[in-house]
């Protein structure tokens, strides 16, 4: 009998049917070794597109490095724009993976098992994109290491009152931990891939990366400890990284940035866009590879609920921000909150942000939307757009209308700006597509474990 959920309806199962070990392994390794011809063709087409977009990304990066930041639309007063927006957006997206993997692991949410690998990979690739932007964004990117506390002969250290060295450290830490966490979880499956590889070369390659995993008790024991420890390490990072990113803004005295609400506000926003991204990726992958039995409506439902919760929190943050601006009575704050954002030159972005981030998630109250792929995907994409726009509103509208009216300005992105945004999406897509066909994107070992530890409740359990 199905367990009842809080609202009294039976929850969908996290794994449908009772596949055997071999069956499960074969099914989950098939995208790597024997994809159907339709899947393979579609994959190649998408990879082609992604390579093209990545090429555009390369050209835009080349333009930035050779011409300087002048190739972008940035100006004084809007000295930060697309690159920072993209950075915050990507790093935000990168939060959901770790949240799903580490947070939910610690909370023993077993439904995470089917999707955590995908979410972690997404995190990793998103953080790669995010990590590129702060470096590209420097006027002299070849001196990016000045932000790193290394023992320089000049005796000069980074300036620790600024948020930026912390930011650099946080991103780097996050990238490292995310990678380790992902890779550690991948080890047993790499071994499975090694064991099933159809060719000698692949066997060798998977063998090298499997680091000699043989599934012994000792290996499992240590793996479990290490995985738990890394989860414990990664969990605070989910909170800290985006808090630090938010300080890039909050420590400034700029109206629209100078706000103590920013750290939690940013973390919530990050998770919000991250969950939306997981949904965006999961729905088509599930469909394409026929994984409806592994990634069930139960997963979509859970993700959608989390997204909705984050949407409500972000709405609360917006309300708080407006209330604070009004309540302080500060002329400049009020101008940004009540004049320049809703009525100024970028009002379109502001209202789009509200529509996407505040209104769209309410569709998720409907069970039909939560459990069906396409509508859910639609909402998720809207939220992605909304969250990018939110960062744009924060960064650009605040800068363009600061204290002295004489220095007010505007901002218009150039082709390089658009190419960097589009190109980074393409590059992310490329990495993700490669990931789909190179490593098992559903954790095989964890699913088997799930099946074994909950033999009775597989049809519908939580």
């Amino acid at each position, binding site marked *: 009998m199905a367990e009842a959920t809080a609202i009294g309806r039976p929850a969908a199962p996290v794994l449908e049917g009772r596949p055997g070990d071999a069956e499960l392994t074969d099914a989950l390794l098939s995208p790597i070794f024997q994809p159907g011809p339709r899947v393979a063709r579609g994959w190649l087409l998408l990879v082609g597109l992604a390579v093209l977009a990545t090429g555009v990304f390369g050209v835009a990066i080349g333009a930035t490095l050779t011409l300087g930041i002048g190739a972008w639309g940035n100006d004084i*007063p809007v000295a930060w724009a697309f690159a920072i927006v993209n950075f915050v957006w990507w790093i935000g997206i990168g939060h959901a993976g770790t949240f799903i993997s580490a947070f939910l692991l610690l909370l023993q949410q077993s439904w995470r098992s089917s999707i955590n690998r995908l979410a972690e990979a997404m995190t990793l690739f998103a953080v790669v994109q995010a990590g590129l932007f702060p470096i590209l964004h420097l006027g*002299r990117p070849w001196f990016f290491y000045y932000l790193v506390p290394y023992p320089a002969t000049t005796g000069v250290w980074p300036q620790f009152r600024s948020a930026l060295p912390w930011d650099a450290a946080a991103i780097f830490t996050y990238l490292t931990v995310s990678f380790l966490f992902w890779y550690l979880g991948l080890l047993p499956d790499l071994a499975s891939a090694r064991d099933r590889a159809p060719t000698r070369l692949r066997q060798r390659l998977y063998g090298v990366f499997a680091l000699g995993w043989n599934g012994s008790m000792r290996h499992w024991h240590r793996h479990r400890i290490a995985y738990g420890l890394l989860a414990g390490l990664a969990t605070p990072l989910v909170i800290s990284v985006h808090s630090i990113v938010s300080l890039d803004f909050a420590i400034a005295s700029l109206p629209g940035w100078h706000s103590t609400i920013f750290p939690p506000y940013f973390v919530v926003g990050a998770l919000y866009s991250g969950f939306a991204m997981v949904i965006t990726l999961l729905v088509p992958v599930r469909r394409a590879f026929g994984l409806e039995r592994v990634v069930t409506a139960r997963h979509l439902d859970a993700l959608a609920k989390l997204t909705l919760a984050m949407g409500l929190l972000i709405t609360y943050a917006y309300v708080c921000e407006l209330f604070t601006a009004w309540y302080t009575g500060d002329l400049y704050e009020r101008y940004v909150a009540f004049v320049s954002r809703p009525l100024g030159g970028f009002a379109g972005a502001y209202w789009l942000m509200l529509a996407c981030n505040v209104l769209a998630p309410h569709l998720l109250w409907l069970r039909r939307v939560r459990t069906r792929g396409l509508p859910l995907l639609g909402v998720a994409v809207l939220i992605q757009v909304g969250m990018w726009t939110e960062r744009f509103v924060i960064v650009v509208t605040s800068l363009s209308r*600061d204290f*002295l009216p*004489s220095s007010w300005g505007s901002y218009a992105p150039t082709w390089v700006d658009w190419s960097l945004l589009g190109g980074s999406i393409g590059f992310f897509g490329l990495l993700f597509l490669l990931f789909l066909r190179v490593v098992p994107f559903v954790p095989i070992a964890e699913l088997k474990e799930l099946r074994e530890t909950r033999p009775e409740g597989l049809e519908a359990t939580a």
Partner: protein
Amino acid sequence: MEDESERRALSRRAFLQLVTAAAATAGTACFRSPLDTLVPYVERPPELTPGVGTPYATSFELDGYATGVVVECREGRPIKVEGNPLHPASGGAAGVHEQAALLDLYDPTRARALTRDGEVASWSALSAALRSGAADGTGLHVLLGPTASPLVAAQLARLRERRPRARIHFFEALPPAPTVALASEILGRPLQPLPDLGRARCIVAADCDLFGAEPFALRHAADFAAGRRVRRPSDPMSRLYALGPTPTPTADAADHRLPCTGRAVPHFLAALLEAVLRAEGAPGELTQALAPIAAAAPHAGTIERIAGDLRAHRGEALVVAGRGQPAVAHALAWALTDVLGGIGKTLSFTEPLLADATNRDETLPALVDAMASGAVERLVILEVDPARLAPPALRFADAVRRVRDSVALAPHRNETAALCRWHAPSLHALESWGDGRALDGTVSLVQPLVRPLWEGCTRAELLAALVDDDAASGRALLRTAWAAEGRDAEEAFTAALARGVVEASAARRPAARIRLDAVIRMAGEAAAAETPRDGDVELVFRPDPALHDGRFAANAWLQELPDPVTKLTWENAAWLGPETARGLGASDGTWLRVAREGRSIEIPAIIVPGHAEGSVTLLLGFGPRSHLPASHGGGVDVTPLVPAGLPLASGLVTRVEGRPPHRLARTQQSQRQHDRSVARERTRESLEAAEAPRPLDAFYAPPQGDPPQWAMTVDLTVCTGCSACVVACQAENDVPVVGRDEILRGREMHWLRIDRYAEGGDAAPRTVSQPMLCQQCELAPCEYVCPVEATVHSRDGLNDMVYNRCVGTRFCSNNCPYKVRRFNWRDYQADVPEVTRLQRNPDVTVRARGVMEKCTYCVQRIRRAQIRARRDARPLEDGEVRTACQQTCPTRAITFGSIADAQSAVSRTRAAPQAYAVLEELGTRPRTMYLARVRNPLPGLGVDG
């Protein structure tokens, strides 16, 4: 095959041969090109210390009058212009043109060789051609601009003497006011007026940009400012009424702005004169004669009160009309000043100074007629550009083609030079010998600071070549002319060169009596001659404050200098009042068609609050130029519409349908303060209640340093927004020029900008110009956000920028509430032409791409002064360090010094009741403070007039 193997098997002998040969070549073959003049001094010349600048006094001429300057030369390169404190037109200040003239020296587009029919020619061939015609000068015509230079006057006199049939013509697109001819009529003798603002306490500037377009503007501004520095309500303060169509720095500085069309100005003055005369009890027939003219006066409600105010300042009142006004306006202004007892005090008359000023009928039309009739064999055009600037109806270009030998002396191959057979490059003033006279007659010398970068000659040299067989050098000519004046002592000449001015050379000021009846008769005749047509808009033509009539179009500093009023760069636009714009359905950037006498231009509109309605101001100096890159040809050439003579005309203005609006490259988007008290103003009476400002308590203690502690104050009361400081800063600190496209992107680089705010109604707003530069905050918001310590605080209170540490995160700019930081978005410095780099200040680092930069309080000047003081083992004196902006400011609006010294000038200004810090509520504790704009409106008249 054999060869191949032999070569591979290198024998010991062959190896040694090769090594020897290589060693020998290494020692011999690497000579550079033969050393030419780069021989180090065996004995250093006493005046030259490497790394230490040498100042030389010289002067620049504009609109015929000279302004004395002191130019600093470093290792043989002139690198900075300052005013000459001994020169009456400068008083130590330099305006935008003086500051920027330096860049023209290093202009890569200058003509570099004498050409004949476009081919390089020899100077002897030119000399031969110049003397080839009839010995009495038949068929020889000379065209030049108005000039007060005694040397040029002497050459012209010699030309007349030796070539009696030669004819001399004068031309300028916007000619000087017709005051000398007017004086002949109403004073009975040819004289020219010289206002003295230092003695005026109540001034009416009638369409007169005293602090901008008029000669002696720097001096006028300084004299005016001297009467405006108040600290208490009881301090005396002058009052300025500014009348006229166009908002100018003078109108911005005024206590009352009275916008009216240019045509209405004489009516206002007539009404004012009538009111004053009536109150003075003058005979009824005088006032009755004026009454019909006065009836059409604008601002009629204010006239009685202004007349009363003027009468209350008997002997200290001055009414002055501008160069764009007809003779009658000048006559009325003189009459008013006379009735108010100002003649000999606020207004004097001097002997005419411009060469041949008494014989002005040898005009351009006369020349064109002569050319068209084939009577001109040789035409010599000296540094004027009639091919571009003459009214098109004259068909100047067609006429020139009928001249056998035409010679143009011009710095560039401009339209006139391209038209003439010969083009002789003219030398820059910093390469020339010469002289000039200021408006008060003081003679100043022009001496070269550098050998001519390229070949060329001066006006005097070319004029001399018309007469003499072996042309003397510029110095010899000057020396001869000097001797002819009866001052032949070499010591006196040397002393004058050193000082830049000739002592006691000011023009005599004979007593003058205005014939009031003549003025009134004139006014009556002028009123009768007026035939305004319905539907026409008045067109007012003015020289651009930066490019003048286009002669500075090659100068990138001036191209990029924001207009003092509109903040427009690299182009011009038609200035409209808000109501006129509404009537036309025009907004900023709307294309307008302006037509007059069958010719029309299309020009974008710009709405300027405070501009007179029914009037459109068009600025000369813009439009494509044949000799300049397209970037320097922005804007629209309005010369097709310029009338001959008076720069006032009637025209039709319509909107161009279907043409997408033009994006105006302005550096300031909003001139409203949005209720933020950024540029503050107050009335004189309110100073009583005010107490000296106290900085906010800071949560963190501001950093403690050692004396001196640098600080600056800017007095907004006397700042006219003239922008000389902007160019001075650019010259001193190697601030790059970015071009129109980058301006449109909001990437101007000026370390010092001038914000202009307009408050009150659009018809006559109160404006404040606020120089905005790094505020050198004690608790600088930029410093704590920099991740790499690239911007840090110095012990003496400066906010330093460490360029080679900067990685370019731009966080500092985001966190700067004043947005005074500038970022090198591109490699701007690489765009500077090779020759222009010679201008760079060797004491200032050239900034790379990707680096933030900003005002340093001219730290290089501070350090230089400190080194000097330490060498002399004495403390640094107050006022010893002067920043570039401070030094050039005509009104001395900027005070700089140490606040560690309570007695320093800057400490005292900071204690003034109107002192405040911009955005002080943010707790940044800026070291740059402002003295609020104090106004002195006439009680009851209303600030808006």
